[in-house]
């Protein structure tokens, strides 16, 4: 796909090494605004690594080397002087395993806003309600905001984590296999939610479930052994893959 003005993230010639092991090889991809982009591929092909690069979560891992560029709204995220905290506010992350903090539901949601300096009680109340509504979990938790978040079910915890990410008003949501640890009902709730959220947000979602990619995504990127093999409109890619390896993967010949 060509770069266009509507792309919010633009990745050029991205390579990444963990020590001597090259996990990403020359990735070029433009992610359009207000869409869902699915990343698929067999495990170990670098999907999570790629996702973490987009909000610089790889900074936390020692011995990571990165070349190439990632532009977010036209600015290189690796440029010196970039405010990583602000970058991560604008590009939120939802992880594979729900990871609410061991504190109250309220404090979980308020964690991000508080981090970015919001102390006003009424304003926090407001954000908490809005975020929980945004993640379609308000009705389930509104009577127990002061209870520990670890008491929620797995599916609720994951939606809480989405709400927690929404609370800092991001533009992009990165989701790394957000439904792989959940039951089918919770999974479909999260898929529905993702489709609602793309009105306001840009979503990049890693999934090992190809039906999920077909159901919810606009574009799909197929990774293999650290390379981006194919990237395009989801319907086109699943109906007429241009690369033999993509075809083999989506028809279930490996993976």
């Amino acid at each position, binding site marked *: 796909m060509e770069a266009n003005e509507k792309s919010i993230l633009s990745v050029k010639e991205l390579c990444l090494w963990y020590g001597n092991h090259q996990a990403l090889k020359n990735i070029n991809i433009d992610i359009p605004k207000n869409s869902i982009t699915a990343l698929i591929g067999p495990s170990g092909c670098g999907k999570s690594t790629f996702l973490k690069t987009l909000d610089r979560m790889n900074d*936390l891992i*020692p011995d990571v080397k990165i070349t190439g560029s990632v532009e977010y709204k036209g600015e290189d995220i690796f440029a010196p002087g970039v405010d990583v905290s602000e970058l*991560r*506010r604008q590009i939120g992350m939802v*992880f594979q395993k729900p*990871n609410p903090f*061991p504190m109250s539901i309220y404090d979980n949601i308020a*964690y991000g806003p508080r981090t970015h300096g919001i102390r006003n009680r009424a304003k926090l109340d407001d954000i908490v309600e809005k975020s929980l509504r945004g993640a379609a979990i308000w009705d389930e938790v509104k009577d127990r905001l002061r209870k520990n978040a670890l008491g929620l079910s797995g599916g609720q915890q994951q939606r809480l984590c989405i709400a927690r990410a929404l609370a800092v008003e991001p533009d992009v949501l990165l989701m790394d296999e957000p439904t792989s640890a959940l039951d089918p009902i919770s999974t479909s709730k999260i898929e529905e939610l993702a489709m609602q959220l793309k009105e306001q947000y840009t979503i990049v979602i890693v999934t090992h479930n190809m039906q999920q990619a077909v159901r919810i995504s606009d574009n799909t990127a197929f990774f293999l052994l650290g390379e981006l093999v194919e990237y395009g409109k989801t319907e086109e890619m699943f109906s007429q893959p241009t690369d033999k390896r993509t075809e083999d993967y989506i028809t279930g010949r490996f993976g």
Partner: protein
Amino acid sequence: MNKKLSPGRRAYTAGMKALMYASTAAIGALVLLLIGYVLYRGIPNITWKFLTMAPSILNDTIGIWPDILNSIYVVIATIIIVLPLGVCAAVYLSEYASNKRLVSIIEYAAETLSGIPSIIYGLVGMLFFCEFLKMQTTLMAGALTLVIMNLPTVMRTTQESLKTVPQSYREGAFGLGAGKWRVIRTVVLPGCVDGVITGCILSVGRILGESAALLFTAGIAHVVNGFFMGLKSSGATLTVALYIYAKERGEFGVAFAIAAILMLLTLIINLSAEAVARSFKNKRRI
């Protein structure tokens, strides 16, 4: 399964079992006997006056009130210093230090330090704090010596419990844009309070039980002082007093009374350590 065992094998198993029962019983009996004997000899000597008076040469009476106070002072002074030091060192080593070789060397050194006999700490503490730093024989010099002795314990228990804080909490917080210090303060440290408290209680137990290091550094006086005055003076803690009464004055009744008190204190401390650990585990599971 059982049917397949040969008779010899079965006899061997039964023999081993009997042996294990016997050793367990022997250990149990020994512990009970020891505790029972100390309590039996000690408790009759514990009176209100004994607990609340200073010894008087004129009246020829013995009281351990100054020794109780000294013990409390040393515990407080040591913990106040060792706790922040140990926790900060642990946080630095586990969360900040990037030179892994250096970290493992320091951890190894700490491990070794905690195995050194306390009398050596006493000797070094005497030379360094009492003589070199000219603090003389004071409770403060004793407390500082105990700080060095307990630093590895507090550091290691804190480090161990830092490891139990799931990486996913840190990722979640960093992912929201939190800085390192905020992540540590709001997510990591609250998750390891139980480890800190456990280390702290273990240290209190060791401080109360310490005698050799304090004989060298804190002295043997039995004078009632306030907290700050006390730290600046020489003084015997309960354990040191036990040694002095038994060894130098032949007052075995007094020594056993102190022993009984120390044993009860140790029991209380161990129980509270367990209670703390348990209550934190429960809290986390909710």
